[in-house]
């Protein structure tokens, strides 16, 4: 049997705390093929970012390991580029210089100055940011910053693109727009992508596989859903598509039935549950989305009961 491209092999991690060590992950095991788009979904605090950080090499697993193209991952590197939740651009460098910093590191031996220049501009135009090359991050909008963050990672030509809630902090319209751009880019470049998300629609729309994680502590993979929707995918057409709705339903069932939000479990009634959700999750738009899907689930629960 052929070895998988990226193998996450029985990883577990314990964090040192003041008292007993905290076991965040237990026996997470996953193989990913080249060019696959995988989403990680699960309740807040279950350990998604931790998984991603272990793959990136930013955290060291207590047990198990990550193998990329036959090589064990032991430290962070540009072959596993990370798009951070809040863009993580250097505020003192312009859009162009931010991408340049990465390109200079990765291609210092293989590209000359002119080629680098062209490559930087090319990647920024992929995310439609070529009009603001010389602006500082403080001078552009949140969605634009996130796009530059993505361009910086794409420009590194990573083997695996790791994205931690890349669109979490954005409004719904911008998010939809960036999802479409990302789909387009991924289709044409064939990147291997692992993306963390809270948004069920986003997961189904973008992914080839959706990895659903159980609640922590000692979280692990609960279910894996293969999404066999033809590409290119169109969000409007899919909204009515029976398969799409079915996939979506399965993820929702996992999240809100099999893995009830740990914060809600103690409250039995529906209204208390909703209140609790609103109270626990203030402000950010990503969390509003979570509340929305929560409502949908309670709705479907009722239909099923009836």
């Amino acid at each position, binding site marked *: 049997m052929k070895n998988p491209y990226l193998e996450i092999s029985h990883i577990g991690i314990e964090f040192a705390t003041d008292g007993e060590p905290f076991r965040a992950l237990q026996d997470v095991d996953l193989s990913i093929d080249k060019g696959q788009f995988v989403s990680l979904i699960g309740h807040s605090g279950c350990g998604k970012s931790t998984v991603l950080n272990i793959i*990136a*090499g*930013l955290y060291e697993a207590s047990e198990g390991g990550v193998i990329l193209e036959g090589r064990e991952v032991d*430290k*962070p*590197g*540009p072959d*596993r*580029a*990370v798009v*951070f939740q*809040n863009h*993580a651009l*250097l*505020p*003192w*460098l312009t859009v162009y210089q931010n991408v340049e*910093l*990465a390109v200079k*590191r*990765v291609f210092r031996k293989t590209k000359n100055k002119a080629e680098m220049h062209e490559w930087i501009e090319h990647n920024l135009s992929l995310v439609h940011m070529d009009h603001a090359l010389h602006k*500082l991050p*403080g001078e552009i909008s949140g969605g634009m910053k996130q796009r530059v963050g993505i361009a910086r990672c794409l420009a*590194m030509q990573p083997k695996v693109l790791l994205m931690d809630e890349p669109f979490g902090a954005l409004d719904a319209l911008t998010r939809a727009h960036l999802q479409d751009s990302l789909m387009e880019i991924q289709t044409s470049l064939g990147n291997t992508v692992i993306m963390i998300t809270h948004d069920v629609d986003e997961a189904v729309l973008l992914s080839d596989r959706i990895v659903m994680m159980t609640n922590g502590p000692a979280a692990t993979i609960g279910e894996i859903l293969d999404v066999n929707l033809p590409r290119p995918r169109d969000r409007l057409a899919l909204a009515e598509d029976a398969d799409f709705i079915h996939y979506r339903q399965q993820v929702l069932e996992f999240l809100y039935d099999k893995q009830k939000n740990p914060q809600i479990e103690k409250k039995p009634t529906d209204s208390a549950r909703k209140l609790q959700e609103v109270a626990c999750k203030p402000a950010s738009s990503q969390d509003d989305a979570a509340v929305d899907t929560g409502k949908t689930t309670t709705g479907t629960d009722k239909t099923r009961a009836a």
Partner: protein
Amino acid sequence: MTDLAAIFRNEQGIARFSISQLSSIARTVGKTLALPLAGILIFLMLWQGVANNINTSLGQFPGPVQVWEQSKGLLAEHQRERKKAAAFYQRQEDRNAKRLAKNPDAEVKIRSYTGKATFLDQVITSLYTVSFGFLIATVIAVPLGIVCGLSEKVYQSVNPIIQTFKPVSPLAWLPLVTMVVSALYVTDDPMFEKAFLTSAFTVALCCLWPTVINTTVGVTSIDRDLVNVSRVLQLPSLVHVRKIVIPSAIPMIFTGMRLSLATGWMVLIAAEMLAQNPGLGKFIWDEFQNGSSDSLGRIMVAVVTIGLIGFLLDRLMLLLQKRISWDKQAILR
């Protein structure tokens, strides 16, 4: 005709506009200046009032009026000294020229003028000394702070030393520094005077710490995401420091440097007084020992000058920070 009328109206409009703008500018200037001016005025009046009621063995305590008179006196004294010096050099040159005319091979020398250092000379000496001491401190403190901020181990091992030396008064250092400088700085052709070096090193020793501590804090509080970006890119340490650490720590580095400079300036005056090293401190001490009826007024001039220079130095640092800082929107105070 209608065109002309329109232009006329227009011009009036412009004129009205600019007048209203002018008056608004005048109002904002008035607002920003009025309060400080009022404050200063009230302070001066209180000062004069209190001063009139204090009598010392050296006469009445100087009020603003006397201080103003004394400062004019000090300036005049400085100009007189300068003239004397110029005349002294002129005489030497004339003499040398005559001697060379008689005998072209004659060895000629110019002796330097050794008159009394005036108030302005002392101010300049002090400024020069504090700059030198501060420079030494910064060159040591910023890199040390960066290393402490980057490495927990270095921090753990250096921190007790910093915490122990930080509270030490400059006056405690002074005898040690004086002895060490005399022992170690032995050259035939000294570039710096020993007194100058003693003062500068004492200043440096005392103004190291705020910069070290603030730089360390600045470096440790870098955004974790930015550090992770650097790790993913596998930036070499020097590039990491240059591109990520220094820019994010710049505001804290400057906060530390401003504190250091202020400390250094205070320390210097005390050190000069105690060690009789040239500078403003010595000026004050000499006046005090002098004990003439003008002395208190002259000391007060020095006090005000010290304050104004301290204020000015801080403003200069702020300007420098504005020049260097990447964040032009940041409000600096």
